[in-house]
């Protein structure tokens, strides 16, 4: 068997902040411009990709984050076994990419997901992120792509003071160090 390796595999707690890397989960990048694409995704996943910017849609298993007018990130809430990922990826690929209405790319390992929880998570973010979270934090499900400590991130507001942050794997170790360092001072 091949061993699974994650760059972080850690959880840390500070006063009012808890940070942890989340179990490997499915992440698929979806692209498409047409109405067909939206309908097809809706049909396959029973979730309509949001067309309103900076928002998300989802159910108990899956979330679709708006990344751009023709780009979404699909991710699962829970660890999904590999076979299921393959099946889902193949199904979507066949229905979307092969059908020439968009593209489907597995990015499960491209992104690392870090969960940030606690009353002071937004202070933590404010120590390295120029994004204005004033409205964001009030709106469950809101999504933003921005920079945190000069690193590209996607942030999904799951719940009150409960965020999922996506960072590219090769940057994740560095960002994790930085988050830990920042949390000392919040």
């Amino acid at each position, binding site marked *: 068997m*091949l061993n699974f390796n994650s760059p972080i595999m850690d959880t840390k707690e500070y006063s009012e902040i808890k940070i942890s890397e989340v179990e*490997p989960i499915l992440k698929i990048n979806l692209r498409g411009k047409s109405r067909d694409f939206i309908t097809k995704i809706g049909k396959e996943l029973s979730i309509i990709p949001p067309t309103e910017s900076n928002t998300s849609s989802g159910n108990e298993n899956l979330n679709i984050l708006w990344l751009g007018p023709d780009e979404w990130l699909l991710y699962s809430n829970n660890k999904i076994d590999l076979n299921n990922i393959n099946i889902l990826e193949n199904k979507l690929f066949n229905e979307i990419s092969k059908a020439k209405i968009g593209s489907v790319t597995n*990015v499960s390992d491209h992104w690392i997901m870090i969960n940030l929880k606690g009353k002071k998570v937004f202070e933590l973010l404010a120590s390295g992120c120029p994004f204005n979270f*004033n409205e964001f934090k009030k709106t469950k499900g809101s999504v933003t792509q921005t920079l945190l400590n000069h690193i590209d991130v996607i942030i999904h507001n799951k719940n009150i003071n409960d965020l999922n942050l996506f960072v590219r794997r*090769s940057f994740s170790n560095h960002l994790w160090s930085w988050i830990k360092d*920042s949390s000392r001072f919040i």
Partner: protein
Amino acid sequence: MSKNLRITNNKFIDQTTKISFKFDGKTLYGFKGDTLASALLANNIHLVGRSFKYHRPRGIMACGSEEPNAIVQVGNDASITEPNTRATEIELYEGLEASSQNCWPSVNFDIGAVNNFFSPLIPAAFYYKTFMWPANFWKLYEYFIRKSAGLGKSPTEPDKDIYDHRYLHCDVLVVGGGISGIMAAKVAAKSNLNTVLIDDKNNLGGTTLFQKNECFKINSFYSNDWLRKEIETLNSLKNLTIKTRTSLAAYHSYNYLLARENLTDHLDLNEKRDKIRQRLWKIRAKKVIIATGAMERPLIFSNNDRPGIMLSSSIKKYIDYYGVKCGQKISLFTNNDSAYETAISLNNSGVIVNSVIDIRNKTNSLIVKQAEKLGIKIYWKSSVVNTSGYKKINSIEFMKLSDDATTVIGKKIKEKCDCLGISGGWTPRVHLFTQSGGKLKFRDVDNVFLPDKSELDQISIGSCNGDFELDDVIKNSVNLTNKFLKINNNDYENLEIISSKEIDKKNIWLLPSDKPLGKTKQFLDFQNDSTANDVKLALREGFKSIEHVKRYTTTGMATDQGKLSNMHALGIIAETAGVKMGELGTTTFRPPYTPLTFGTIVGRNVGEFFDTTRKTPIHEWHVENKAEFENVGQWKRAWYYPIGNENMHEAVQRESKAARDSAGILDASTLGKIDIQGSDASEFLNRIYTNAWSKLEIGKCRYGLMLNEDGMVYDDGVTTRLSENHYLMTTTTGGAANVLSKMEDYLQTEWPELDVYLTSVTDHYGTVSICGPNSKRILTKIIPDLDLSDKEFPHMSFKNALIDNIKCRVMRISFTGEHSYEINIQSSYAKSVWEKCFEAGKEFNITPYGTETMHLLRAEKGFIIAGQDTDGTMTPVDLQMDWIINKKKYDFIGKRSLYRSDTIREDRKQLVGLLTDDPNEILEEGAQIVSETNSQPVEMLGHVTSSYYSPNLNKSIALAVVKNGKKLKGQKMFVPMKDKNISVTITDTVFLDKENKRLNA
């Protein structure tokens, strides 16, 4: 502490907590709440520094950020010492050590003071006029000039403190916590606006906080008492954030402001540790209210720089706020009413006020009458003409002013004093307003520049907007705020305000003297030692613009950035040149408002966080196996893996040989990988790359070269056709982000009609590359069910496969010229696959190799590295890669540029191989190439781009670009080094296995 200099009934200083500190090595005491300046004054120390040029004794002049003289070195430790710190802003703490600067051996006896005697020889800008001969002596002159210049000393060890950044977004930012700022913040916060109020002091209230005077009352309270109650109510406002010890440093466009919060500078030495010293707030405010107040102006007269000469309002703050008497017998010199407030305060605290010397004719404002009632002596229409006392003022001389105020007349009166308060009126602090791009207007009546037009959503209120009377301040601040925020708050309507009104205003920028101008010194810029005379000299010499005068005389360029001197410089220029001040304009106020510590600007982006470090999924293995790393952009790449005491050369020779003799393994995960899907994917690649893609079979790989629109090679890599409309592109490590963004650019802006989607998958895949004659055997062990026959899986093709049930893509491609495979597997399993390959390869002595060996191996085969063998001036034709240009294609990026008159020249620099006559001589990369060695200067034909000793060929090899190189094959050339000329021969670029036999071995 001199007991008799402290008054005891003071509310702002904790006179129960005694603090010890050192100044110039001497242990002194102050109280909690003191600044270094107030504590020194309480110890009867005025002399704290020497001036920049003449080394004249200088004392504390002010009580805030405008202080020009009292700048000290704080701390002795080489890592935390801090130069040029204003004593007026240092909050006293236990263990503080400070010392005077720019003097030797001591502030009391300073050798440099000899400059004062030479001062007639060193007028403004004298240095432009001398030190020119002997011509090569400037270095020597400069050595001494430099030694005597500079103020404090830089630390010599790295800083131990931590700095931090924080972003803040608010509806309203109020800068300045004086009376107008407090009212504005309250009005805003009560209207449900998310409001932030900042002030650079340790508490709110500004000067009103200690204004206890019969002439300034609100609702029959003293103004200080009224304001204190207002401040207390602020705590209950939930939309309001208050930040004290926070000074606004810069106001940029789009209401982006930087503020520095001081978190530990005021703490005792042992409390500072492990805390953030300063935090830079990066504020984005929807609306900004500037309430930064005004600064008192000095007066410009002969010898106005002696220790003990202070701004009148500062003397007031020292007595009313710190409970410190700046002297026992104080004289005041003024052109306006505010000195009378000082006189009354001093009088109330039992300090003798000798007299108030006022350049105005007798005036009858409320406050003047109050002073007269207290029996304070006033000399109207008089002016100080000289002062005495070397290390501290001991007397002043004053005379009557003539009716036109151009000369002094009558008898000279001498008055003994130990302190002189001067007041030249008030300058609104418009610095932030102008930093933000706002334009100023000039108000003639009291010679002030005021905020006029601004592009940004902001207003100025209070005295920084030119309101100097209490009732105006209150009324206008609230009205302006209401209007600005489009609200209607009436909390401050119907206040009953008593406020003394200044009736008479008069200003003389340069006061007349009984001596010729050149004979005395009237200082404008106290720190830089520029005088009124210097300004006049500049004007005489034709320096007319304010910026010229400023630069020629250095007025306003000291660490206080001319806070006290700029207005007078302008005034004197205007007067001398006979122009109106408003027409002259001002100099530009540049950020920061007060000097800002580098560490604060940088925050925690130091050390580990200086720049992002990117790691491959196999990184830990390289670390465990003692790899040396190379920085490639932000990536850490394994460079070579030394065994034992091997140096780099030895390791690389071993790795290179192993890779060709048996098997090598390389972490290629850093290569950029872009997933391309869409029905026009092939057409897109046709336009992006120089070669054709439509006919590439599914399952095949192809090398592509990408040009810039100027025809020069930009990036390269192998792209694989995964299915009809699906490709996987690889890019160079360094080029990945740029290539993706460039392709997105073309796709979105030039070719939106193409149905193509690009998604980066660089981090999704780890790439394990195994090469060498045994690579096939190793791969068979790992993926037994994959048919690796040349027929089924030829060079430049790809297969989907499973390793332990995990999907992967295997490409048979080669950058070394060896039979070679790249396994792309999702990153989480990459390290495990690497280990598996390593394990399987052990019997074949599989050898991990790094980037250096990779470079060597590819050079043996003549493969280029974009960025090393190309430098932005090489076309594919120059690289002798004509074969990759599909001439039949209608267009591709950069095509047209290949046909310009210079790019079609046949004798351009072209990529060639080089062999040294001595096979053991390794050329230096970057060395130049010439065809003859006798002439001077010699024409350089090109340079060595890559050079190695090849252990597989047992000789040194090199790639180079040489003018007309294509036609010079076989020709002798020279590589001229500092100490020798190396003979070389131009060859083909392929040194090893020209027939590509090894690919299929």
